[in-house]
């Protein structure tokens, strides 16, 4: 009985909410009407700016058939012409308005002429059909960073200086949007290149030190030297792999195991490792090579920068919809202020891939809530906590090739 009452209460609440929203909308709209909307000239300006802002988003994705089609409609209403056409250097990308049948093939000849000069021209279409309204065409160049990318062609029924001027200005505005699009693209390319560089970036010191350590065992303990070489081979295969941006926690841990085996060969008994891994979180997908650099960092702080023994604790816990990984060392620690500057990119990191890169990649994939958390002070060791959501759209691990 009471369940029904609760359900009824919930339904009533939902209804109230809906009514409230509708009323709010209505009153907001009414308030809008009473506002001072400016003089007719101002209103025309607003309208133009609004149309222009609507045309901008598709163009920001670059000049393709799809984006040109979306933008052409807005641009034609902006110019108020019969027909508007957008082309790249070789073909017509979008045609908005009548006359596509008999003008479309001719227009590229005119555009080709314009491409040579790179300046706006106004040409007669010499159309045979007397009823066709497309008498004059203004061809304006769309320029990008590397010269002319294409053309904007506006058709009018008569020769008009206003149309020429307007079409040229619109073409210039479109050019700015296209340049921004290029900027976006190159920014994405830089990020991708960074990640690719990060992936392949095993510290040269590490390679040198590992090989030196292995060499020291070749005579005294050939069997161990062989094992270490195999570990080294596995480690490099994982680090240099080309496919996939994501990996499973289990694979990343195996990579860390190999890294620690190699580091252990160099430091001997000085390095102690404690592991607390919850098996539930091993299948969690995470960005490739985002924990190994943290372990490398811990080894550096714990061993390279001090003379004493060091214990590294690696823990992975199950916490509902997230996995929490902590990497702790009892080494020399760090001044929090300096660390903050490094993470903010104001001071170059000294070793390896570094904390800031891991931090950046985690934020890029999971959002700003998921950066690394570092607890440290000079002489007090360092504890790094990474939270990884068990599921995030687009994050799929690709298992290790050999397994």
């Amino acid at each position, binding site marked *: 009985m009471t369940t029904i009452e609760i359900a009824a209460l919930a339904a009533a609440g939902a209804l109230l909410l809906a009514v409230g929203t509708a009323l709010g909308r209505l009153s907001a709209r009414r308030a809008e009407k009473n506002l001072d909307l400016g003089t007719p000239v101002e209103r025309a300006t607003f309208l133009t700016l609004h149309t222009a802002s609507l045309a901008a988003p598709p163009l920001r994705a670059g000049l393709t058939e799809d984006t040109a089609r979306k933008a052409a409609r807005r641009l034609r209403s902006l110019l108020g012409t019969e027909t508007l056409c957008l082309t790249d250097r070789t073909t017509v990308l979008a045609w908005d308005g009548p006359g596509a049948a008999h003008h479309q093939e001719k227009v590229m000849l005119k555009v080709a002429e314009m491409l040579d000069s790179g300046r706006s021209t106004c040409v007669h279409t010499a159309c045979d059909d007397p009823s066709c309204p497309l008498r004059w065409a203004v061809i304006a160049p769309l320029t990008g960073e590397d010269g002319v990318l294409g053309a904007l062609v506006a058709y009018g029924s008569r020769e008009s200086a206003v149309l020429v001027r307007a079409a040229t200005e619109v073409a210039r505005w479109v050019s700015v949007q296209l340049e921004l699009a290029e900027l976006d693209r190159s920014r994405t390319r830089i990020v991708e290149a960074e990640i690719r560089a990060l992936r392949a970036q095993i510290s040269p010191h590490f390679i040198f030190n590992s090989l030196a350590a292995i060499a020291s065992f070749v005579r005294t303990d050939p069997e161990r030297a062989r094992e270490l070489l195999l570990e080294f081979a596995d480690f490099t295969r994982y680090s240099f792999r080309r496919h996939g941006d994501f990996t499973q926690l289990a694979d990343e841990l195996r990579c860390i195991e190999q890294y620690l085996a190699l580091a252990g060969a160099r430091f001997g008994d000085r390095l102690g490792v404690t592991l607390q891994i919850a098996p539930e979180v091993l299948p969690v997908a995470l960005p490739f090579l985002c924990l190994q650099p943290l372990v490398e960092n811990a080894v550096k702080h714990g061993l390279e920068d001090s003379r004493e023994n060091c214990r590294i604790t690696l823990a992975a*816990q199950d*916490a*509902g919809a997230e996995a929490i990984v902590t990497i702790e060392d009892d080494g020399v620690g760090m001044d929090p202020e300096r660390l903050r500057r490094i993470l903010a990119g104001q001071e170059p990191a000294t070793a390896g891939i570094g904390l800031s890169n891991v931090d950046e990649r985690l934020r890029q994939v999971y959002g700003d809530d998921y950066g690394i958390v570092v607890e440290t002070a000079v002489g007090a060791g360092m504890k790094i906590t990474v939270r990884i959501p068990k599921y995030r759209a687009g*994050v799929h691990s690709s*298992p290790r090739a050999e397994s």
Partner: protein
Amino acid sequence: MNHAYAVAAVTVVVLVTLLIGALGLRISRTTSDFYVASRTVGPRLNAAAISGEYLSAASFLGIAGLVLLQGPEMLWYPVGYTAGYLVLLLLVAAPLRRSGAYTLSDFAEARLESPQVRRLASLFVVGIGWLYLLPQLQGAGLTLEILTGAPGWVGGLVVAVVVTGAVAAGGMRSITFVQAFQYWLKLTALLVPALFLAGAWFGDDAPRARFDAPATFREHTSVRFQETVRIELDRPLTLTATGTVDDRPYDNGSLTLDVGSHRIASGTTLGFPAGAEVPEQSDTRAAGAAIWSEPLADSREEHPLYATYGLILATFLGTMGLPHVAVRFYTSPNGTAARRTTLVVLALIGAFYLLPPVYGVLGRIYAPELALTGDADAAVLVLPERLIGGVGGDLLGALLAGGAFAAFLSTASGLTMSVAGVLTQDVLPARGVRHFRLATVLAMAVPLGLGAVTADVPVADAVGLAFAVSASSFCPLLVLGIWWRGLTPPGAAAGLVIGGGAALTAVMATRAGIPAAGWSHSLLAWPAVWSVPLGFLTMVLVSLATRSRIPPGTAATLARLHLPEELTTKPAGSTAPEAER
């Protein structure tokens, strides 16, 4: 029954659960044990964990009570609970794992690329989780009441506090070990006493249980009625009474009751002679007895075939949509392991469900008066005392009490974890560990509060409701999402709302008693028969109507769901950055 033993057993179960939960992870390892530390959960351990989490109060106590009351046709319950995993194995297990989804709402997002559908699915996950938690808490209350005589709300509160505390404090970190332990504990707790009971039964010349005729008292039995009830007699019965019968006081006096209906006031003790038939209790609901073993018995008698099909559909198809079941599959390292896990689950659960009917049948022979007082669910708990008695009986009873509490704890903690997880991700605004704790409290407080408000909800109704809603909402989403390319976000949303919503409305209406009898009552009490096809049909039709909205990544997603992981390594790697952009 000796309360001290039972309370001790329950305490031990709670403490061991918390201890394993907290310490399972603390087994530290050194570098040389790296391989051991990074070994994934094997199918057997995972299957035991899934089974441990799945076997709830309804399985441990409820089925025996049902068999005692209504006979072998109630075996459809254990059959349905088990066969749900067969459907899961065949259609869902491996693709669900390969999707990389942790919760069902994750799956909705991964498959349909739509945050809106994800949010809708989250609402259903939380709703089904709460519906399922409600009977667990009530069952705990009932058990503690039977064991110690504590008021009904105490048991629910104990379970709620223990589970919330453990989950919120991170004490369930090694939940796989905890749940696996709970399975073996539950199996042992049922198996060992069952062996002793069977031995005692053989020693007693193996009497047969009769289900076609009313049960009879084997010896002179005193029954004390806690609540006022009406009983129906088919033939005159002479018995002794202390208390009030038909508004007339008796003090250990002998009386003969005529054929017909008689009112027994609360606090009355009746002494039935040996060989007397157990009278039927009429209108248990009016008496206010909260028995879970009374699953709409009246409607069953009206249209038993329809009701049975309703039960079969709900349990067969509802299992895959239970939030705590789906979450455990994430622990499997890959799709093949998930499938293997499900196979082992089938074996483990199948083995477990052989035992409760034994208790039901023995209860029919040795404790028939439970049907009269409305405590049929206590059958499992009281049988050792009846058949064996003495310290041995007390010890076995304590073992069963511990097992029953393990059932509440494991199911409740699994449900709380998954509901809290979804609440943190999709409902509460900010993220962080503290919010997970807040969500845990919320996940438990709502069903606890609802349980306090709706004290007279029959427990089997609530379990059935959870299964029916799950079968009508998530079963279409999962099956069509995995096996049909044409599913669109609007189609999925419409199917969820119409299928799941219809099932929810139907059972709510039944509970409110709107259609008292007849076909309309049967239809609403067992909605799965029509609401599951409704959900499927809506999803298919709306998807066909909105064909342009098919998510662009459908082909890639389906390839990932169905191909073994090793084959999809390359495509997955090349599609991931695009999805990210």
